[in-house]
C-alpha cells in the first residue's frame, strides 16, 4: 500500500543517506585524484630519493626533487606550535570548564571563538609586520623570518580548536566523578587534575590532535613568516619551508603534466597521509572514551 507518506519517508531517508555518503565519496575522489596526478613523479625519481632527498630544486635540469627539508620544516613548525598551544590550550580549557564563574566563562568562550574566526592570512600579515622585526631584534637573529615566528602564529590558530574540543570533553565528564572526589576529601585542584582531567584525557588528546592537524595544513600564514628556505632546519630559529607553502607558491607556475606538477601533487599525497594519520589517532582517542 504505497501511500504518499510512505514514499516521502523513503525519499527523505535516501536523501539523508546520500548526504552522509557524499562526504566519504568526496574524500575518496580527492585521494584518487591526488594519486592519479602525483604517482607519475615516481617515474622521474624513486620513492626513497623523493622522501629522503635533501635538495629541492624543481626547475633545474634535471630537477632535484628531495622533500626531506620540507617535511622537516612542516614538522618543526608544528612541534614548535604545539609547545606553546598545547599547555596554554589545555590549561585554558580546564579553567573555562572547571574554575571560571559563569559570566567569565561566557566572555572567554566568545573570545576564543572570535580568535577562531580570524582569517589565517590576517595572522600572517600581522606576524610579518610585528613579530618578525621584533624577533630579529630581541633574539639577535640574522633575520626574523624563522620557524619560531611561524610557530607562534600557528599556536594562535590552533588554540581555539584545542580549547573548544578539550572544554567539551571536560564538561562531558559526569558530575558524579567530581562529587565523589570532593566527598572523599580532595581539594578542588586535586579533584580537577587527578580525576576530571584524567577522565577526559582521551577527549583532550583528540583536541590536541585536531589542533595539530589544523597547524600542519596551514598555508598562508606560514608562507608569510617562515622565510621559505628549503634547507634542513638545525634549530627553530632558522628560516624553513613547509610542504603547504611549497605547493601554494609553486603550483601557479608549473605547466600541467610536467615533472614539477606531478611532484607537487606527490607532496599533496604526503600531506594527506600525515593529516590522515593524525585524524585517525584523534578518532581512536575519542572512541576510547566510550569503553
Amino acid at each position, binding site marked *: 500500500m504505497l501511500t504518499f507518506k510512505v514514499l516521502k519517508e523513503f525519499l527523505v531517508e535516501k536523501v539523508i543517506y546520500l548526504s552522509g555518503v557524499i562526504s566519504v565519496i568526496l574524500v575518496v575522489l580527492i585521494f584518487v585524484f591526488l594519486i592519479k596526478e602525483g604517482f607519475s613523479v615516481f617515474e622521474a625519481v624513486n620513492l626513497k630519493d623523493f622522501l629522503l632527498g635533501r635538495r629541492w630544486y624543481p*626547475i633545474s635540469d634535471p630537477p632535484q626533487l628531495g622533500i626531506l627539508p620540507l617535511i622537516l620544516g612542516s614538522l618543526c613548525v608544528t612541534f614548535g606550535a604545539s609547545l606553546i598551544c598545547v599547555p596554554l590550550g589545555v590549561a585554558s580549557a580546564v579553567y573555562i570548564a572547571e574554575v571560571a564563574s559563569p559570566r567569565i566563562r561566557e566572555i572567554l568562550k566568545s573570545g576564543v571563538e572570535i580568535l577562531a574566526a580570524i582569517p589565517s592570512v590576517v595572522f600572517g600579515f600581522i606576524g610579518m609586520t610585528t613579530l618578525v622585526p621584533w624577533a630579529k631584534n630581541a633574539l639577535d637573529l*640574522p*633575520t626574523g*623570518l624563522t620557524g619560531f615566528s611561524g610557530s607562534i602564529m600557528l599556536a594562535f590558530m590552533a588554540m581555539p580548536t584545542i580549547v573548544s574540543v578539550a572544554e567539551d570533553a571536560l564538561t562531558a565528564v559526569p558530575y558524579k566523578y567530581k562529587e565523589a572526589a570532593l566527598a572523599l576529601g580532595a581539594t578542588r585542584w586535586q579533584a580537577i587534575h587527578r580525576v576530571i582531567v584524567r577522565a577526559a584525557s582521551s577527549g583532550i588528546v583528540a583536541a590536541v590532535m585536531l589542533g595539530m592537524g589544523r597547524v600542519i595544513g596551514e598555508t598562508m600564514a606560514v608562507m608569510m613568516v617562515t622565510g621559505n628556505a*628549503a634547507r634542513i632546519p638545525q634549530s627553530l630559529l632558522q628560516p624553513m619551508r613547509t610542504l603547504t607553502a611549497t605547493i601554494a607558491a609553486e603550483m601557479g607556475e*608549473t605547466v600541467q603534466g*610536467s615533472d614539477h606538477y606531478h611532484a607537487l601533487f606527490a607532496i599533496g599525497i604526503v600531506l594527506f597521509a600525515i593529516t590522515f594519520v593524525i585524524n585517525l589517532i584523534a578518532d581512536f582517542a575519542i572512541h576510547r572514551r566510550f569503553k
Partner: protein
Amino acid sequence: MKTKTLIFLCLSLTASLFPSCEKAGTQTPGPASLHHSIQIKGSDTMVNLGQAWVEGYMQEHPQAFVAVTGGGSGTGIAALLSGTCDIAETSRTMKSKELKQAAEKGVKPVEFVVAMDGLAVVVNPKNPLDRLTVNELADIFTGKIRNWKEVGGHDLPIVLLSREVNSGTHVYFKEHVLRQGDEKRPEEFDEGALLMPSSQAVADEIAQNPNAIGYYGVGYSNPTQKALAVAQDKNSPYYLPTLENIMDGKYYISRPLLMYTNGQPQGTVKDFIDFVLSKEGQEIVRQVDFVPVPQR
C-alpha cells in the same frame, strides 16, 4: 519544507551550474574579429607596467577590456600553454623545456621585446658596501661567501633574499649572475636563501634588515634600500643601475622584457601590442621607471 519549494530549489541549483561552463577570454583562431576582452598574465616585475599600458590603451579604446594579473613569468607562460590567457608578459625568455611543451600542445609562441629592465642588487643603507663584481655576487648568492667581512663589510652573517621559482627575475638572476650566461652550469641559489613571494617583500625585508642582500627590477627602487654598483670583474668600471647605464648596455645585469602570444596576434591583441610598441607606449615605460626599447 513544502515539496514545491524543494523542487524549485533543486531546479535553481542545477540552473546556476550552467553559466560556469563558459571559458572567459580565450582567443579563437579564424577571421580577425575584434573581440573586446583580453587576458594578460605573467611577470610580477611587469605587472605595474602592464597595468599602466592597459590604462593608456583603454583611454583610447573605451570599449576594450584588458585584464592584467601577476603570478610570475613562469605562471604566465604556463597559462599561455594551457590556453588560459591571450598574452604572457615575462621578464625572461622561454626555456627550451617550455618551448618543447608548447610544441607538444600545438602552441606557437611569438615573442615581442616591449621594454628593458635592469636588476638592481640592493642592500640596507646601513651596509657600508657600495660595489661588487659579478663573481663576488655569484659567490654570495650560491653560498660560498657567508659573512659580510669576506667582501669588506662588517662581521655579520649574510642573509640572502631571492624570489620564488616561478619568478622570471629569479630565473634571470640565476642564469646571468650565478651561471654567468651558461644555462647548463650547475650553480643554484644557496639552499638557505629566503624565497620571498614578491619584489615588494624583498624591498620590505631589506629596509629592516642590515644583514640582507637581495635583487629586484629597478622599477622597485626605493630610498630605503641601497643599490650596489656592479662590474664584470675587478678591472672593469663599476656601474650603478641608472636609466642611461641600462640603455647604453653598460650595466651588466639588464634584460629585455617580453610579451608572448600564441601565433601571430590578431584583432584586439594585435592592436594592444601595436600600442605598447608605439611612441606613447614607450613613453609609459619611462613613466613607470623602466627603460624603453632602444629604437633602431
